């Protein structure tokens, strides 16, 4: 059995609840206002995105922390009383939502959501819940490690994580290795624009370590769909000679039969390009040229 292409490995069975009404409650950071907000809706049981689209008037928001500082438990209580008529929400809501906020703050969450927050004859029940932890917060909370769910990532993504690389699998055939997240996204976009399709997002990061390039290449090559590899480096902190060393190392250690297009510019680029040409590889200076070349190699290879 699969759900949305994911194999079902476990099934959670819970007792049937006598649900009289369903609320939605979540704590999150509002990126626009940079505030920690509590979102409550009486239209629970469906995704908040759907509520926002279909019944935005049923979404109520309370600032737990913001420009005015910290809100108190008392203020939360008053707000719930003035916003909702249901007695059970006024009575039991404050304690539940205050605890949600405490969990959110204590564990560096990016989302604590109860949906539905069910009204039953026995009181309010969290019938389902979702917690998302902030990746940047996890190192400060080793107790969260056991919640890591490897199924969220592809095997390549997991290996990249272990190697300290930022990697996302895509469905195309041009393997991309880029330094910097913005440039890596732009490289994907421009590849698509020129008729190719990127196989992945890969940011080798700002450090200039030849081993990182070797690891990155190893992960790229695992993808059997690849028809070409595109390396796009704009050296800042990253030094082009280190990248060249990594590429040469990868060619020695790994069995690479695919065409590689290299764009190398920035810090120590002359040295890097010289090293590559001594090793029989060429590097171009211009990003658009490099991308066209990679797209030609990938699509041309398929047609011939």
């Amino acid at each position: 059995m699969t759900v949305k292409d994911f194999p079902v490995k476990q099934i959670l069975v819970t007792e049937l609840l006598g649900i009289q009404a369903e609320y939605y409650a979540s704590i999150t950071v509002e990126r626009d206002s940079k505030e920690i907000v509590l979102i409550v809706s009486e239209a629970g049981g469906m995704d908040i995105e759907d509520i926002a689209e279909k019944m935005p008037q049923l979404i109520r928001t309370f600032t737990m922390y913001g420009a005015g500082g910290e809100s108190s438990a008392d203020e939360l209580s008053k707000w719930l009383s003035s916003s909702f008529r249901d007695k059970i929400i006024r009575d039991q809501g404050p304690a539940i939502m205050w605890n949600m906020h405490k969990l959110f703050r204590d564990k560096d969450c990016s989302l604590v959501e109860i949906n539905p927050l069910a009204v039953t004859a026995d009181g309010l029940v969290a019938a389902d819940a979702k917690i998302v932890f902030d990746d940047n917060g996890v190192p400060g909370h080793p107790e969260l490690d056991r919640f890591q769910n490897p199924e969220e990532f592809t095997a390549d993504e997991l290996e990249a994580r272990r190697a300290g690389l930022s990697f996302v699998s895509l469905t195309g055939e041009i393997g991309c290795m880029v330094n910097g997240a913005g440039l890596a996204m732009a490289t994907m976009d421009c590849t698509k624009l020129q008729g190719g399709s990127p196989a992945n997002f890969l940011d080798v990061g700002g450090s200039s370590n030849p081993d990182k390039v070797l690891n990155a290449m190893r992960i790229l090559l695992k993808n059997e769909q690849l028809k070409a590899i595109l390396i796009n480096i704009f050296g800042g902190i990253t030094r082009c000679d280190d990248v060249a060393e990594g590429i040469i190392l990868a060619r020695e250690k790994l069995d690479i039969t695919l065409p590689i297009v290299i764009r190398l510019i920035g810090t120590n680029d002359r040295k890097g390009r010289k090293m590559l040409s001594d090793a029989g590889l060429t590097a171009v200076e211009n990003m658009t040229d490099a991308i066209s070349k990679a797209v030609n190699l990938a699509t041309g290879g398929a047609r011939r």
Partner: protein
Amino acid sequence: MSILIDEHTRVIAQGITGRDGSFHARQMLEYGTQVVGGVTPGKGGQTAGTLPVFDTVAEAVNKTGAQCSIIFVPAKFATDAIREAAESGISLIVCITEGIPVLSMVELYHELRRKKVRLIGPNCPGIISPDKCKVGIMPGHIHKPGVVGVISRSGTLTYEVVYGLTEKKMGQSTCIGIGGDPIVGTGYVELLEMFEKDEQTEAIVLIGEIGGAEEEKAASFIKTSVHKKVVAFISGRTAPPEKRMGHAGAIVSGGKGGAESKIRALQQAGVIVVDRPDQIPDAIKV
């Protein structure tokens, strides 16, 4: 004039004795920035190259008259470092550090607003006013002084754009990397406002990416309040939803933060949005 920093800006580096801090403090000095010292708790009295090291920011400010601090300390200690700078009379803080938890930034953001201290970053390449002052980690030599202001959420993509501008003899007034995190100290709008007022700046390049709605906010500000020419590039059009694309803030989540809505908003505000970074110089000329 440039914005935020110029040849008179006196700069200290927090975390100056670390690997990145010492390297980049030297690079900034060589570029001509008035780097006047550094701070590493417990290492006061030592020197980092030619620069004096202090135990606290307060002492450094007292002895050197620094107004600006660049922060290289690890994520775990970075918010304390920012807070210390803000409490010690520093008015402009540039935080390079990546990996600060979002909630720490939320708290800090509002604290700094109340204190009226400006923070650029975190997780950013910094600021450069070419040939005057560099407070950041960008390669200085690709920049040339001129009339184009650059604001970006990215690092290397900004270098790419700046390189293209310089190659076409279009110098820059100031280039600012605002950072790739979901919560950053200073957004596009405030910087657009500064560039609009700045006499040196004649055109503005805005480099955005997926995630959040800062570009949309910038678009509505441009529509009402920016009369200078603005050219934009948005990266991440091909990014899959619900996946973080390297930057903590670069994620299309719950159908929000996609590139198309940003591009549309900017175009409706009269901004020329280009498909490729190398089209930016021509778009400015038109």
